[in-house]
């Protein structure tokens, strides 16, 4: 009952005309960046961060939420019509969706993706509404050692899950942790790693790192390999709206996708990719039309697209309740909270209920806006792809300059942008994941504070780190996350060798 009252209060905030306006702006912007290649929600929010100085936090986060959800809707559009997933979360959608578009059923694919996104987004938001306060309540009992263990778990799982190898993941993570140590130590006031530059006393700005690694790195990469011609757009012509049979085949995948997506998204390293893989595999197994998979099965669009959106709602659970980001976008949102001097976590539910519940209520509204924006108007969004690529990337660099120069008009920031952009390019070429670096950068200093706090309380006794059941089990899970996948790979290799040997002997 209390939750319902809070939610109604949230709707009162979110339905104010000015906030509805920002929600609309966010949704439109999110859809646009979802459609356009090279820009994602994380980058868009980072570039808009300077603007937040001018509008109140509730409006800003309502807009950001619109961008987060909108990018998912827009991403499915390009996956289906172009076979170029704008984001890793929509790779699976492209598999079946593009096939459907090629056989003239693009409209049905877009419809099942959009409606599935709406259904899953709403279910995910409902789950968020009722789960988040409970988890936030739980988090009140967390001591510093528990928080530290939680962050260690977050580090290890992000480094393991994202990227192609452990080494790459941990390299990215430690790079971010290293950047996070630059600046004044918050506990003793000593300067660390500033190399004599006053501009670095406040640390390396998160926006600069994110913009450089993503936008500049991506621009350099695409520029150096632009010879490959842009793919042709599948026209929407002759498309039929979803038939009765399409509906019958879609609604179960939508629900299953939501059920898979939300809990995985809510894990410390969930992300949106894994649920889409799982949902695709599940639908493929359960479908009564297995022969259609690979040829454009509607279940293969409906399921992953729903999983994707439900996971996006799931990501907000650890972010809002524990201050724990699990994707690049969540890390930017955390940085935005910090810009306002707010720390997401259990206290925020008590101190800023208007902001949090307004944000959650706006997710319901945003889903509705997006459904309206995307179903009838999809033709307009696709037209964004007609902008020549050189202008898209030229524009990206100009807006990256706005984001970086607008922070504090500092020359050092521009130099950092150039250097980190080169590193982003190398990371892109050699397939290093960027998200662990961002999460290391934003979570590293916090993990350090919690660790030092725990050790100060225990008078320097390290056993405090496993002193509570919560911290001990979290650290144990972190150790498992680290050791189990390589062990499994080693066993599989052994099994393969054992199989190969008798075969070669015989």
């Amino acid at each position, binding site marked *: 009952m209390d939750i319902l009252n809070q939610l109604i209060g949230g709707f009162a905030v979110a339905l104010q005309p000015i906030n509805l306006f920002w929600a609309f702006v966010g949704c439109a912007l999110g859809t646009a960046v979802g459609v356009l290649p090279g820009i994602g929600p994380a980058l868009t929010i980072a570039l808009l961060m300077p603007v937040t100085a001018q509008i109140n936090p509730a409006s800003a986060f309502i807009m950001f939420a619109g961008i987060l959800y909108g990018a998912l809707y827009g991403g499915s559009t390009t996956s289906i019509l172009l076979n170029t997933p704008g984001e890793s979360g929509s790779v699976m959608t492209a598999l079946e969706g593009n096939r459907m578009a090629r056989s003239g059923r693009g409209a049905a694919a877009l419809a099942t993706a959009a409606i599935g996104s709406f259904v899953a987004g709403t279910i995910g938001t409902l789950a968020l509404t009722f789960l988040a306060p409970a988890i936030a309540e739980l988090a009140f009992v967390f001591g510093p050692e528990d928080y530290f263990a939680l962050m260690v778990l977050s580090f290890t799982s992000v480094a393991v899950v994202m990227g192609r190898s452990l080494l790459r993941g941990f390299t990215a993570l430690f790079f971010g942790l290293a950047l996070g140590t630059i600046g004044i130590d918050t506990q003793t006031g000593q300067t660390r790693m500033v190399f004599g530059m006053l501009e670095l006393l406040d640390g390396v700005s998160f926006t600069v790192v994110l913009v450089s690694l993503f936008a500049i790195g991506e621009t350099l990469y695409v520029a150096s390999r632009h010879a490959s011609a842009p793919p042709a757009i599948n026209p929407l012509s002759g498309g039929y709206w979803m038939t009765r049979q399409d509906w019958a085949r879609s609604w179960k995948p939508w629900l299953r996708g939501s059920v898979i997506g939300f809990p995985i998204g809510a894990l410390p390293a969930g992300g949106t990719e894994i649920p889409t893989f799982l949902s695709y595999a599940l639908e493929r197994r359960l479908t009564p039309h297995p022969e259609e998979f690979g040829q454009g099965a509607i279940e293969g669009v409906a399921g992953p697209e729903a999983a994707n959106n439900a996971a996006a709602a799931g990501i907000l659970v650890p972010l809002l309740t524990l201050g724990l980001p699990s994707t690049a976008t969540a890390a930017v949102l955390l940085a935005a909270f910090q810009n306002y001097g707010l720390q997401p976590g259990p206290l925020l539910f008590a101190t800023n209920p208007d902001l949090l519940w307004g944000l959650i209520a706006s997710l319901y509204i945003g889903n509705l806006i997006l459904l309206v924006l995307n179903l009838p108007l999809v033709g307009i969004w696709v037209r964004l792809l007609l902008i020549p690529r050189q202008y898209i990337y030229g524009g990206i660099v100009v807006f990256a300059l706005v984001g970086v120069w607008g922070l504090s*008009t500092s020359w050092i920031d521009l130099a950092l942008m150039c250097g980190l952009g080169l590193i982003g390019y190398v990371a892109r070429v050699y397939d290093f994941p960027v998200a662990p670096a961002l999460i290391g950068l934003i979570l590293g200093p916090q993990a350090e504070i919690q660790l030092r706090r725990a050790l100060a309380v225990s008078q320097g006794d390290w056993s405090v780190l496993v002193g509570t059941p919560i911290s001990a089990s979290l650290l144990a899970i972190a150790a498992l996350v680290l050791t189990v996948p390589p062990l499994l790979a080693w066993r599989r290799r052994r099994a393969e060798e054992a199989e190969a040997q008798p075969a070669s002997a015989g």
Partner: protein
Amino acid sequence: MTGKRQAEQRDRRSKPWWMGLALAIMGALWLNGARSISSTTNYIGLGPAAIVLAVGLGLTVLGILLILQALRGEFAAVADEAEAPPSHPAFLLALAGVAVPLLTMRWLGFPLTAMLAFALVTHAFGSRRTGLDLVIGFALGSAAWLGFSRLGISLGGFLPLIG
């Protein structure tokens, strides 16, 4: 025979040992930095240098591992068959577009810098209509400057040279 061919293939692949080296150097920088942070003794528990030290150690170890992997030839660039081979002139043009603000931002101001950066990047993408690109870049830069100034975000003077 097959071993020889494998070795040849491995040679042809790039061995980006320099990445690990750069990381190890960064680690050394951090380790050295940790030394110069005086650990305050009256502080219970961990001092401000400890994390810097730990991160430095981590970076160094990861750097060495990266070098080893690279030298064993296990660390190739993502070789997407669909991707065109990298074009160095285009890369350098785009890099120039990113670097030009370092030289011009404080002298020429945001709109002109945005114009130059925009034109350089579009040329990296193969555009040859210099005039049009400069006009679009200037319009985009001015619009961003005006819009963000109205929002209260300073992007410096419009044309610092004029004042």
